[in-house]
C-alpha cells in the first residue's frame, strides 16, 4: 500500500514537469517560453518545499504517523524541480555553454543581483539535503541529521525571498508563500506534544497525571 502511495506521489509530483514539456511541444508557452518554464519550475519548487515542511505538522495534527515516509519523496521532488529551474536558467536562459561569456554573466548575476544570490544559495543548501536523504546517511549522521535538515527552513525562506525580489509591484503570491512558511514554522514549534514520543523518565508521574507531558517528552521527539 505504501509503495502504491509512493508511486502515485512521484507520478503526481512529476505531472507539472510533464505539462511544461507538453505545453512546450504544443507552442503553448506564450511569447516568452523561457520565462514560463523558469517560473513554473520555480513555483513548483517552492510548493513542494512547503509540502515537505508541512509533513511534520500534519503528522502531529492528524496522528497519521506513516506520513513521514512520504516526506523524503516530496523533498526529492522539490530538489528535482530546483535542478530543472537552475538548469533552465543556466542553459536555456543564459546559454551556457553555447553562448560565449555566459558563465561570466552567470557569475556576475550570482554576485551582484540579490535575488539571484539568495536563489543560488537556496539551491546550494538543498544539495546536501538531497544527498543525505537516504537511510544510510540518516544512520551515519544520527542526531546531526535532524540538525542538518533544519536547513530546509532556511532554503525555503531564501526561495520565497528570491521570488519576492524578482517581481515588479505588489504581487500577492510570494507573500502568500512566505506566510505559509511562517505558519509551518510556528506549527513545527507549537504544539510541542508529539503523538509518537511517549517516552517518559522512570520517575515520572503515572499516566493519570492531569498535568500535560509535553515539556518532558519534547526533547526526545524523533521526528
Amino acid at each position: 500500500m505504501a509503495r502504491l502511495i509512493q508511486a502515485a506521489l512521484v507520478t503526481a509530483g512529476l505531472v507539472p514537469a510533464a505539462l511544461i514539456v507538453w505545453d512546450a511541444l504544443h507552442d503553448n508557452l506564450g511569447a516568452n517560453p523561457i520565462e514560463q518554464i523558469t517560473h513554473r519550475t520555480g513555483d513548483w519548487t517552492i510548493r513542494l518545499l512547503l509540502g515537505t515542511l508541512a509533513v511534520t505538522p500534519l503528522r502531529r495534527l492528524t496522528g497519521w504517523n506513516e506520513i513521514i515516509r512520504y516526506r523524503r519523496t516530496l523533498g526529492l521532488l522539490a530538489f528535482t524541480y530546483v535542478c530543472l529551474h537552475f538548469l533552465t536558467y543556466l542553459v536555456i536562459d543564459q546559454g551556457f555553454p553555447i553562448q560565449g561569456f555566459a558563465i561570466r554573466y552567470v557569475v556576475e548575476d550570482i554576485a551582484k543581483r540579490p535575488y539571484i544570490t539568495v536563489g543560488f544559495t537556496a539551491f546550494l543548501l538543498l544539495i546536501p539535503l538531497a544527498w543525505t536523504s537516504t537511510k544510510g546517511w540518516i544512520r551515519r549522521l544520527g542526531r546531526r541529521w535532524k540538525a542538518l535538515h533544519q536547513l530546509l527552513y532556511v532554503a525555503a525562506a531564501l526561495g520565497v525571498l528570491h521570488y519576492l525580489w524578482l517581481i515588479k509591484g505588489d504581487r500577492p503570491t510570494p507573500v502568500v508563500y512566505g506566510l505559509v512558511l511562517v505558519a509551518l514554522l510556528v506549527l513545527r514549534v507549537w504544539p510541542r506534544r508529539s503523538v509518537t514520543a511517549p517516552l517518559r523518565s522512570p520517575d515520572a508521574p503515572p499516566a493519570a497525571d492531569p498535568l500535560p507531558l509535553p515539556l518532558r517528552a519534547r526533547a526526545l521527539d524523533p521526528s
Partner: protein
Amino acid sequence: MLIKHPDDFRSSEITPESLYWNRRQFVGAAGAMIGTTLLPSLTPLPPLHVRGEGERGGEDDKPNSYEDITHYNNYYEFGPDKRDPSEHSGRFLPRPWTVIVEGEVHKPKTLDIDEILTRYPAEERVYRLRCVEGWSMVIPWNGFPLSKLLNDVQPTSQAKYVAFTTVYRPSEMPGQNTNILPWPYVEGLRVDEAMHPLTLLVTGLYGKPLPNQDGAPIRLVAPWKYGFKGIKAIVKIRLTRQQPPTTWSMAAPDEYGFYANVNPTVDHPRWSQKRERRLGEFLRRPTLMFNGYAEQVASLYSGMDLRVNF
C-alpha cells in the same frame, strides 16, 4: 486610416563597426550635427537594422507576430500576468472616447478619438520596444507624431513637460480594484522629448485598430525609453511647468525614474540591464544604448548624468 509605408531602409544607415567602437565621440558629434542642420530634413523613421555588439552582430530586427504582441502584455489595469490583459480586457470599451489636451497651452482642446484619427493620419512605424524587465519586441505601430497634436494646441513658453493620464474605469479594468499600483496610471515627458519626431501617439497595430490589451484606443510610444513610459488608454494630456509624477516612479522611486531611458550601463537595482531577451529568439542579445536610437535622441541628454537621471 491612411497608412504611409516607410521608404526602404538604406544600408548607409547601418552603424559601421569603427563608428560603433567610437560611439561615444560619434554620439556627441552627431548630436551637434543633428541639432543644427539635419533636424528639418530628418526623416521620421528610425534605423531598423542597427547592428548589435560583436557577439550578436548582423541580426535584423524582425517584427514580432500579431499573436505575440497581443498576448504578452504588461497592463496591470487588467491584471499583473502577461496573459491577463488579453484575457480580461474584453469588457473594456474604447468608444466613445475623448482626449482632453490642456494646461500650459494657448488653445486647449477636447478631441473625440475619431476626430484625432481623421485630423492626424496614421503612419506605419516599426519600433523596438524594450521592457524594463529585460525582454523586448519589434512592433509595427500605426500612429502619428505627438508633436503634431502639441503644435495645434500651441504650448506656452512656460510649458516644460507633458503629463499623460490613463482612464480610470475599475468596472471595466479589474486590476484597478487592486492596489498593485496607484491609479489612474500617469506618465510624463520633457517637452523636447514629447516634440521629438520619434515620439508617437499610436492608434493601430499591423494596420488594424489597437486592441484593448495594447492600449486602445490611443497610447504613447517613446521607443528609446523603457516600455512602462508608453502610457496606454490616454484620456488627458496636460502641458505643465513642473516635472509631473509618473506611476512606476511613485511605486518604487529607487527603481524607476522619470527619464527611464534604455541604458545598458545603468542597471536596475535588482537586475542587470546589459542584455535582453528578444521574444522569439533563443539566446539573449546585448541591450543598446537608447534602445538603438542613440543617433536620434542622445543629443537630448548631452551633459546629463544618466545614472542620476535614470
